């Protein structure tokens, strides 16, 4: 009855985190475009930050873009330490500007993390995914998860 309907309505509403992450696990990077003003939100948002409209529709990103800022991390986050990164194995994360105009924070592969000063802002990148198994945390069940990553093309 009403109770269950209401729950599944929220859970499956395509503009909440749950849906974004579900699409990610299917190797789809989804944004949301405002029907009123055309603004693209990535990840999807339920309400447009530009015009406050609340009719937005999902749009799949093509996955091409360029690196606009980055870092190479030596003292890793707990998640990355769980994957074996850290002091002995640095990793790059950065901000990618997609051809669609939206930017997103993601893992960056295909760069030389031993020479962080040589990574070039402007490097073209293309969408990629990383699968890794993690323990449960307060918002995820235990198991394999898909992580957004971009591969440097030059």
């Amino acid at each position, binding site marked *: 009855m009403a109770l269950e309907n209401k*729950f599944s309505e929220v859970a499956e509403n395509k503009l909440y985190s749950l849906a974004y992450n579900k699409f990610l696990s299917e190797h789809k990077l989804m944004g949301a475009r405002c029907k009123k003003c055309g603004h693209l939100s990535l990840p999807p948002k*339920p309400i447009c*930050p530009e015009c406050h409209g609340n009719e937005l529709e999902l749009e799949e990103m093509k996955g091409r873009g360029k690196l606009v800022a980055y870092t190479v991390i030596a003292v890793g986050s707990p998640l990355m330490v769980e994957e074996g990164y850290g002091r002995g194995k640095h990793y790059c994360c950065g901000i990618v500007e997609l051809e669609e105009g939206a930017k997103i924070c993601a893992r960056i592969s295909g760069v030389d993390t031993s020479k962080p000063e040589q990574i070039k802002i402007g490097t073209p990148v293309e969408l990629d995914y990383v699968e890794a198994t993690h323990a449960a945390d307060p918002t995820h069940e235990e198991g394999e998860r898909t992580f957004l990553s971009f591969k440097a093309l030059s």
Partner: protein
Amino acid sequence: MPKKRKLGRGVAVVGAGLSKFGIYPKGVRGQDLFVEAYNELRSSVDKGFDPGDIDALYLGNISSDLFERQVHIAPAVANRIGIVPKPAIRFEDACAASGVAFREAIIAISSGIYDIVLAGGLEKMTNLDTTQVTEVLAAAMDPDTEIPAGETFPGIYATIATAHMAKYGTEVEDFMRLGIKNHYNGSLNPHAHFDASIPDIMKRRAASAVKKGLPEPHWADEMEFLHDPKQNPVIAWPMRLFDCSTICDGASCVLLAAEDIARNFTDKPIFVIGTGQASDYFLAERKELASIRATKLAAREAYEMAGVSPQDIKIAEVHDCFTIAELVAMEDLGFYKPGEAVKAIREGENRLDGKLPINTDGGLKAKGHPIGASGVGMVVEIFKQLRGEAGPRQVKKKDVDLGLTHNAGAHGSTIVVNIFQRR
């Protein structure tokens, strides 16, 4: 004696919204539920409003840290609902979190720095299991005395209950009567976590037993059901399962506007005419155990500011995290003399059709207690009732024009009382 407080500028509630309270999957975030509440608020503002005019977000939340492993949640919520770069603040005073956010929003508008503030609260509790939730809540107790003693929050309120029983002869059935009333009210509230009266629950349980091939249980009445230890086990004597509010997820919000612009948004603004807040010690250090002093002090400040007396209040939402809490609040708010609330309870005076309806939305008991959302959740109900928009649970007596909310943090170590008027 506290000073007589006053606000420099009047404030009104002009819109309100709630998410459905209940248990949502792990991947649903508290901020998603806030969007639900906010969307409902948007439709509630009769004459509409431009979200770009919201000056700030005041958000109550107890521990997204422990429940969702997220901090700095206020700007994240501002982001979700599209009101960046407006200031966004998280307030925490245990279960009074959004009561405090609401009061601070009133104060901010009153100061003149803001004209329109979105005040609300959220809590996503059910990612954790009941034991883990109990541990989170226990973090509001004294780490030097109460936690080592093995106290729990049901235990703290049960302790208050034994003091009240010893002093005034209050009986466990009085607590049960409050649960019956609140569950009935909740059954009329589509936002409630438990939208079932005690008789509804009795029918469901009997049917479920039959379905499982077990003998059909019979209870003479609600009281017999609530005395059945299988149906209503003791959590912390004398508090049983049906004396305790529910653990659930939810969000609430209201739109506040300065008095001088309130009618731009609706012809029926609900004015905040009094507000009070007080703190208190952990339980053992208090002179009196069968009463919450902070409620008395916060209420006095609110009544004096509003220029009304307890007997003027037509409807109230009081903090029934446990049934004993509602009973004690009825006395501390001055509705009844100490030890005399039981008389009203036994006579049904606080039902929807009674002289002073209390917790018409089902209270924290039946509507649910997503802790950070509860304080503003109460305001949402008073807003609806004073405007005559509470649907099947609308109080029908005439002139329901003065309402009160009472929101308690932890042991009642924070209390916020607000008084509302329809003009």
